[in-house]
């Protein structure tokens, strides 16, 4: 039983995306990468303690999907959601402060890296119980339908998440109620230390949706333009009332399951895989594409510089922010205080 290391040929003909979209995706990916590399350093330095699951290498997925979303559309993630949060418009400073456990964090210091929120940007909460937000995303899509609003829910999840049964339950419900939802499976070949081939015998994941009557396809998840193209179609499909789709994005995480290590210790195989995947860097690839399409290297360098400065400032902000008080541990057990009238 073998799993091809490189992406399978995509099943789609990619239409060129607008230059503005490409630039937006480039900037988004650069911000994610810069943010996370800094997080990695700060974990190494012992300054960040909360478990951080880095998205480095997978940025094209979040960027490509979110390029097609509106602020009121919701996205749902898990333990590895820095990228989803930033791509959907979450405040970078607030995320870093959250990872530092500070009261100025997006979750008020109650969540850490694995629990991010930005309600005004459609990020209603990411949490690290595998698969937990998939049914929640279905519920958000159901709400949209009942409210007659043309908004879409996106459930981001990993290849391993398909092993949780309620993801299958969720897909059936979404299909049955014809909900405006897109299931985005980021197949990075691993669930923590376990390669896909140690967890199932079939390589393909896109069929997960087919059983439930959901149109399903596979795309090169390191190709931002391809992801954006597919996402554009299926999000439009959802938005216009034609129901859910399933998109498998083939990608690879560069770092370990959790923390900044390169995780090559889980096996020789991974070292070889990394060698294959590093050259497929989604950011370098988009950079090349933008140059080909006439964007100046200076402009792109400015984007990278801006991101670095933004992250520098965020680190300062986080460092200088206070922790939530130890006397406040009983706050917010309930969001609506002591009243029956919200």
């Amino acid at each position, binding site marked *: 039983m073998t799993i091809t290391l490189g992406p399978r040929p995509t099943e789609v003909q990619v239409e060129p995306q607008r230059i503005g979209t490409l630039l937006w995706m480039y900037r988004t990916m650069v911000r994610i990468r810069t943010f996370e590399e800094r997080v990695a350093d700060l974990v190494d330095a012992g300054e960040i303690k909360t478990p951080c699951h880095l998205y480095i290498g997978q940025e094209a997925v979040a960027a490509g999907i979110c390029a097609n979303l509106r602020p009121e559309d*919701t996205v*749902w993630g898990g333990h590895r959601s820095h990228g989803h949060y930033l791509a959907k418009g979450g405040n970078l400073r607030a995320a870093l402060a959250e990872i530092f456990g500070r009261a100025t964090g997006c*979750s*008020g*210091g*109650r*969540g850490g890296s694995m*629990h991010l*929120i930005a*309600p005004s940007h459609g990020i*209603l*909460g990411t*949490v690290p*119980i595998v698969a*937990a*937000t*998939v*049914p*929640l*995303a*279905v*519920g*958000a*899509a*159901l*709400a*949209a339908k*009942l*409210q007659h609003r043309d908004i879409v*829910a996106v459930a981001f999840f990993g290849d391993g998440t398909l092993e949780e*049964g*309620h993801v299958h*339950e*969720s897909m*059936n*419900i979404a299909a*049955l*109620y014809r909900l405006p939802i897109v299931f985005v499976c980021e197949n990075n070949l691993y669930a923590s230390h376990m390669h896909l081939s140690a967890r199932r015998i079939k390589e393909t994941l896109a069929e997960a949706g087919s059983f439930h009557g959901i149109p399903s396809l596979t795309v090169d998840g390191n190709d931002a333009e391809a992801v954006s193209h597919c996402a554009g179609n299926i999000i439009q499909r959802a938005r216009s009332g034609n129901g859910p789709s399933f998109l498998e994005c083939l990608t690879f995480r560069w770092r370990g399951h959790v923390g900044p290590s390169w995780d090559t210790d889980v096996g020789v195989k991974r070292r070889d895989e990394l060698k294959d995947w590093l050259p497929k860097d989604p950011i370098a690839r988009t950079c090349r594409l933008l140059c080909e399409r006439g964007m100046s290297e200076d402009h792109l360098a400015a984007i990278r510089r801006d991101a670095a400065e933004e992250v520098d400032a965020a680190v300062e902000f986080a460092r200088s922010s206070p922790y*939530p008080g130890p006397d406040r541990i009983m*706050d*917010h*057990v*309930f*969001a*609506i205080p002591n*009243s*029956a*009238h*919200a």
Partner: protein
Amino acid sequence: MREINYAQAIREAHAELLANDPRVFVIGQGLWSPWYAGASLKDIDREFGRDRILDSPISENAVTGAAVGAALAGMRPIVFHPRMDFMLLAMDPIVNQAANWSYLFSGQISVPVVIRVSINRGGEQGAQHSQAVHAMFMHVPGIKVVMPANPRDAKGLLVAAVADGNPVMYIDDRWLYGELGDVPEGLFETPIGKAAVRRAGEDVTIVGISFMAREAERAGAQLAAQGISAEVLDLRSLKPWDKETVLQSVRKTGRAVVADSGWHTCGAAAEIAATISTEAFDHLLAPVKRVALPDAPAPTSPEQEKAYFRTATHIIEAAAAILAH
């Protein structure tokens, strides 16, 4: 006021909530069936349409999760489980998600979901169609638990649960569906967290939960006939529970029986009994007694079922025992 039964009161609460608030919808198993929810949802789909009354696939986890997600997205879902046994498949969305969400995000978002579940037991259904595990949810911070024992509260607590804005588990009992009582028309709330004094008394306090609150009333009446003055409380809310009312009563009577329809060990009655014992320590004249299910699964055959479930008789025995202390 008119008399209606407990099931009708539940149905009326649903109907008025659905009519009053477009955010309210109902999802769960058996909503289009004449049987699953007894009379408590009879023809509700015909009245409000199958878009808002969603009978679901057999997917307790995802359906409950979808209700939680819809709540996060601004709706007021009532998700229905026809049995507690089935709801055990939905522990993740309830315990890990709904209960934690507000806390995790510092109250920036609320989860106005009502998780409705029926205790459905007896009738030779056996151990997997009998369980009353409300104690598990009483244990979990971030979720409220209510258990109405009469038609008025069956309506008022459902209205309060939907209005509350936080996750509320609403637990009804099929053995109460036929109970008659006065129920006001129109929306009204039974306050969450407040017990009701069903009978005032001096000699012993009986705290009843759900079905056992009704049995406690019966026990109170029978004890009165024997010249014993029992104060009977219907706890109504399990979390938060009304410590003040309970302690006030026990400080007066000096004796307490706590009656619950769940298992004995680590059940809801354990919490009430432990709290009374500690906080009314100096007022207690006798040990607190619990009346709860034996620590065994539910049997199936009729004679064993009869021996297994608790009724007013057990409460009377317990009261007598502590009165003799």
